[in-house]
């Protein structure tokens, strides 16, 4: 049985919080699916996006579905800059994200 892992980060994410982000976004253990809960994140700089993309790539290789929950227009725009919506399912409602992931795990 593998579980859903929820990784929540908050506030403004920049290079000063890179280690924190790297620790949170580490690809380890037996995980069934990952929800990146960035509901109240208002900013992410390129070092954080880089960490996020590397994590996404690792999870893709393991075949673990990942969804990202975005709650602020600021982060939504940054996610759009980074073309994340081209490679990741992006949601602004938690329930939609969870539904997507539970379907993906089966």
């Amino acid at each position, binding site marked *: 049985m593998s579980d859903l892992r929820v990784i929540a980060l908050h506030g403004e994410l920049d290079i000063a919080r890179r280690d924190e982000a790297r620790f949170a976004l580490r690809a380890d253990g037996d995980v069934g699916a990952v929800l990146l809960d960035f509901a109240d994140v208002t900013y992410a700089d390129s070092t954080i996006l880089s960490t996020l*993309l590397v994590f996404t790539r690792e999870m893709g290789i393991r075949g673990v579905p990942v969804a990202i929950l975005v709650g602020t227009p600021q982060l939504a725009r940054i996610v759009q800059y980074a073309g994340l919506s081209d490679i990741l399912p*992006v949601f602004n409602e938690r329930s939609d994200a969870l539904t997507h992931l539970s379907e993906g795990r089966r």
Partner: protein
Amino acid sequence: MKVGSSARDGPSGSLIVTALTLVVLIASALSAGLYLRTRVVSLLHVSETIRSARSSAFGMLRGQLDEETGIRGFVASGNREYLEPYYAALPMVPADASNLRKRIAELGIPEGPALVDRASALNRAWLALAAGTAEGKRPADGGVLQARAKTMVDGFRAAMANLDTALDRRYVAADADLYAAIERTGLLFGGLILLVAAGTILFGTSQNRAARALEASRALSEEQRREAMRLRIAYETEKHIADTLQDGFAQRPLPTHPSLRFSAMYVPAEEENKVGGDWYDALELPGDRVLFVIGDVAGHGIEAAVGMNRARQALMSSALVDTDPADILTRVNAELLRNSAPMVTGVVGYADAQTYEFVYASAGHPPPILIEPGRAPRMLEIGGVPLGVVPSGAFRTRRVQSVPGAILVLYTDGAVEHSRDVIEGERTLLAAIGSIDTDRATEPAAAIHRAVFAGRTAGDDVAILTVGFSVAPSTGMRVSADRANAEFAARSASPQGAIESAQPSLRIIRRKAS
């Protein structure tokens, strides 16, 4: 019996003569040996002094290099840690110069003192020039400062190189002295060849010793040469790194084109440790087109600078192979992935001076903004993942038909993320761009920067590049320009749609994992 006694006297006389000859021989052999020994010792001493002089000379060179790389690293990254070697080297250079002066006085190198004085003076002059930078002031005119600094540093190196040559010559002379001494000794004994029998043993021993000492001195000089070579290689490598870094920051001149106008601006972050890897490039292509690139490497400092160089090279060389912007990005992405380089965002494209088209592709970069006469500035479409992270970048080439007098504004995230509120940042940037009199502004990039950052400091680097189509200068051209304008106005469906992509829109994708 008498005969017998006289017969006994003969041999005893010759024995005395032989003994005396032997004594003379032994004495001369010994003194010859001692003489040679002295010369060898003297050569060894000269050799040791040259070694010490060389070590001091290299100390001065290394000191100067540490000072240079310290300053360069600091200027490049804004990180004060790079100044550590600079400060460490400050007292070392005069100390090495003082030892070097003593040694060359011992060696009696006539041109030596002047060379050391010249090198020391140039080092002090360079330090006087660099001191302002180390104290945290950014040079008012980096180009002039760099050019002057380069002249001084080159002069310093030339003086040190001449001194090195003089030291080499001094060693060769000392070596030749010893050889001459050996030959002279050899000639002296050559004349007394018959009497050498006993002496040879001693002389031989002495010569053996001399030969061994000579061999040792040879080995020493060989080691010295290798040491010098090692230092030179290490020095060249460091210099190469420092130069590469510096070249990376030196923006290439923008091309001049009869019907395209460029302007650019790069402002490093005010705050230390924040200078990143922003850059721009523009390059003329065949067929009246000009390639433009704006890019940003994730992270700060030397790593970002090195990553920037790599990405910049990859983009430029890919642009020589591929013409389609999305193909260029795909190639660069593969290249960066192979080298596990840091993540890069960017926009690459070209302006076609014949069709008034902008053709571009984006890789995770903030949207280019298009200014067209008589319209509100609008953000163009983006998409595409940053380079160097995932194998499939989903890059797409987009074509925008534009008009004479249009200006495309490319920028790095520092221009919209200064307040940490991207939505607010975009609004400010669009308003700033809207306030520019594009007909009059000769340097739109600088004008935009002023309008955005009026009275405020940037937390991050900001690079801005503008590419514009000239308003056609002649009457005939003016007509065709007006026609292009009219055609464009007819084509553009909704004037309100101009800034639609400036509004935040959340794209929800529901993709079933299969």
